[in-house]
C-alpha cells in the first residue's frame, strides 16, 4: 500500500527565519500520528505548511500526498485533494453565515471532483447529521462564521467543517488548546467518529491530554524544527511525566 503522506527533508522559513529544518514523516492510511513539542518548536508551522499557508516558504524537501506533489498545489487545491487543517485560531468572518460558508466549501470541493453541487435543502439534511457529531443544534448555522464564538465553539466549528468535508487527511493544529473537558470530549468524539481505514489524522498538540481521547498510533516530538524522537503512545505519557527538557535540552516552563 502506498503512503498517504510522505514528507522528506522538509525545510521552511517565515521571512528570513528558518523554522522547519528537515522534517521526515510518513503517514499511512488509517493511522493517527501525534506531533508534539514545546512552544516555538515548529509543530504548528508544519501543520500550516502542509495546508499551504502563504506566510511560509518551503526552501527544501518534498511532500507527496496520495502520490502527488502537495507543495505544487494552491491551498484550495490541497483542500480539494482531501487535506484539511483545523486551525489553531479559526478566523471570524462577519457577514457570512456558518451555513453559507459550509455549503460553499462543500460544493467547491464537490465541483472540483466533477460532482453536482448540493442545493440548500439537501445540504441542510446532510448538516443535520453532522451537527449531531459535535452535539450542536442548528441554531449555530445562522450565526456568522466564528463571529463572537467562544474558544470552544470555534474549535467545535472546525470539527463540524471537518465532518462535513470528510477529508482523507485531517490535521488538527492545537485543537485542544483552550478547551474545557466537555468541549475536549466533544471534539475528540467528532474526530474519532470520522476515523476510517482510508483516512489519516495528524494531531498537533502541546499536551498529552487530548491523546487520552484520540489514541495515536505514533507520537513524534519536534524540537527546533526537527523530529527528535518518535515512538508509540507511551512516548506521550513519558513526555507528560518528564516534560520536554530531557529530549530537547530546552527548559519547559509549561503550565500544567
Amino acid at each position, binding site marked *: 500500500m502506498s503512503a498517504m503522506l510522505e514528507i522528506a527533508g522538509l525545510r521552511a522559513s517565515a521571512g528570513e527565519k528558518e523554522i522547519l529544518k528537515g522534517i521526515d514523516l510518513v503517514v499511512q492510511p488509517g493511522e493517527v500520528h501525534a506531533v508534539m513539542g514545546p512552544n516555538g518548536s515548529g509543530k504548528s508551522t508544519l501543520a500550516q505548511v502542509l*495546508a*499551504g*499557508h*502563504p*506566510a511560509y516558504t518551503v526552501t527544501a524537501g518534498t511532500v507527496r500526498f496520495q502520490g502527488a506533489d502537495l507543495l505544487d498545489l*494552491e*491551498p*484550495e487545491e*490541497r*483542500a*480539494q485533494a482531501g487535506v*484539511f*487543517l483545523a*486551525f489553531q485560531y*479559526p*478566523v471570524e*468572518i*462577519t*457577514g*457570512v453565515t456558518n451555513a453559507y*460558508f459550509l455549503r*460553499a*466549501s*462543500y*460544493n*467547491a*470541493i464537490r*465541483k*472540483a471532483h466533477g460532482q453536482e453541487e448540493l442545493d440548500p435543502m439537501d445540504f441542510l439534511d446532510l448538516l443535520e447529521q453532522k451537527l449531531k457529531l459535535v452535539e450542536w443544534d442548528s441554531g449555530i448555522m445562522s450565526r*456568522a462564521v466564528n463571529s463572537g464564538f467562544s474558544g470552544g465553539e470555534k474549535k467545535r466549528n472546525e470539527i463540524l*467543517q471537518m465532518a462535513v*468535508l470528510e477529508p482523507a487527511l485531517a490535521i488538527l493544529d492545537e485543537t485542544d488548546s483552550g478547551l474545557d473537558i466537555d468541549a475536549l470530549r466533544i471534539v475528540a468524539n467528532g474526530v474519532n467518529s470520522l476515523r476510517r481505514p482510508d483516512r489519516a489524522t495528524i494531531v498537533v498538540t502541546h499536551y498529552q491530554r487530548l491523546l487520552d481521547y484520540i489514541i495515536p498510533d505514533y507520537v513524534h516530538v519536534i524540537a527546533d524544527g526537527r523530529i527528535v524522537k518518535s515512538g508509540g503512545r507511551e512516548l506521550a505519557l513519558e513526555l507528560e511525566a518528564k516534560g520536554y527538557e530531557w529530549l530537547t535540552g530546552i527548559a519547559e516552563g509549561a503550565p500544567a
Partner: protein
Amino acid sequence: MSKALAEAFERFSRNGGGEGPTELLTRRREAWGRFAAAGFPSSRDEEWRFTPVSAIEKISWTPAIEPVSPPVPRELDPYRVGPPDWVSLVFVNGRYDAGLSQESGLPAGVSVEPLATALARQPALLDLTEATPFSVLNAAFARDGAVIRVAAGVEVVHPIHLLFLTTASAAAQTVQVRSLIVVEQGARAQFVESYAGLGDAASFTNAVTDVSVGAGAWVEHSRIQRESESAYHIGLTRVEQQRDSHYRSFTLAMGGAIARHDLRARLADENVETLLYGLYLGRGEQLVDNHTVIYHDRPNCRSWEVYKGVLDGKSHAVFNGKVLVTPEAQKTDAKQTNRNLLLSDGAKVDTKPQLEIFADDVRCTHGATVGRLDETAFFYLQSRGISRSAAKRLLTYAFAAEVTAEIASVPVREALDRLVVERLGGLE
C-alpha cells in the same frame, strides 16, 4: 456657469415655469438667480474639495424630455423591490408615469400626488432654505417627483417605492426631481427611493428629497442609486425629526461616473433616534461621494452612523461625516464609523470625520479605516476548498453585508443583497 442651462431656464420660465401660480415662477426665478450667481461649485469650495464637478459643468445640458419610445413594464422588472402589488411611483426622465406605476393598494390615510400637482396648489413646497448649489438649480427646474403624506397613527406595512428611471435616450439631458415625504405623528412607514438608468446614457440627475418625521413616528428610508456608470448623479436628502421619533436610512451608491449624495438629518427635538447606514461600491473610474450632516439640536438624542465602501479599479470615494452638537444638546450619544475596503492599488479614499461639539455632557465617537482584505481570512477560505477569486468575492460581500443586514424590511434587504452580490460578480 452653463450657457445651455441659462438658455434652458429662459425657455422654461418664458413658458410659465411649469403649471402653477405666479408665485411659483417667482420662486423659480429666485432659485435660478442664486444658482447663476454662485455657479457650479469648484474645488476651492471646502464642501467640494475632493469632488470636481467640472465634467458636469462642461456638458451643454438640456432638460430631459419624454422618451420617444417609453419603457414597457417588463423593462422595470430588474428595478422593482418586493412583489408587483406593492405601491410604486415610477418616473421616467423626471416625469411621473401613471401607466408604469402601481398606485392602488395604498392604505387609508396615505396620500400620494405628483409634485407638479402639489406645486400648483402650494408653491412654497419649493423650499429654498438650507440650500446647496445643486438644490437651487433643482428648485429652478424641478417639475416632478412624489409628494407623500402618511397621516398620524397610520401604519404602512409594505414599503412605498419611488423609482426614478432615466432612459437610454437621455444623453446630455438633465433630470431635476424633487420629492417630499411627510410621516405624521405616531405613523410608521417605509420608503425605497431608487435611481436607475435604462441603458448607458450620460445623463445628469439632480434630486432633492425632504423627509419630515413627526413625533413618535418610525421611518425606514432606503435610497438606491444604481444609475449608468456614464451618468452624473447629485442628490440631497434632508430629514427633520420630531420628539421620540425613529428614522433609519440605508444608502446604496453604486452607479454614476460622478455620484454625490448629501444626507442631512436634523434631530429637532428630544429623545430622537437616527440611524444612518451607507454602502458605496466604486469601480472603473467612478467617483462616489457621501456627505452626511447630523444636527444634534436638542438633548437626549442618539445617532448611529455606519458607512462602508468597497473600491476597485481606479475608483475614488469621498466620505465626510459631520456631527454638530449644539450647547443645549446634552446627553447626546453619537457614534460614527466609516470603513473602506480597497480591492486594487489604483483605488483611493478621502475620509473625514468632522465633530463639532458644543455641549459638555455627551458621548461622541468616530472612527475611519481604509484597508485591504485580510490574508489570513483568504487562507482560511482557501483551506476549505474555495478558490482565491471566490474567496475575494465572498469576503467582499461579507464586508458589505454587515451594513445591508441592518435594513429592517426583509424584502428590501434581500433585494439590496442580490444587487450587491450581482455587482461583485456573483457568489458560488
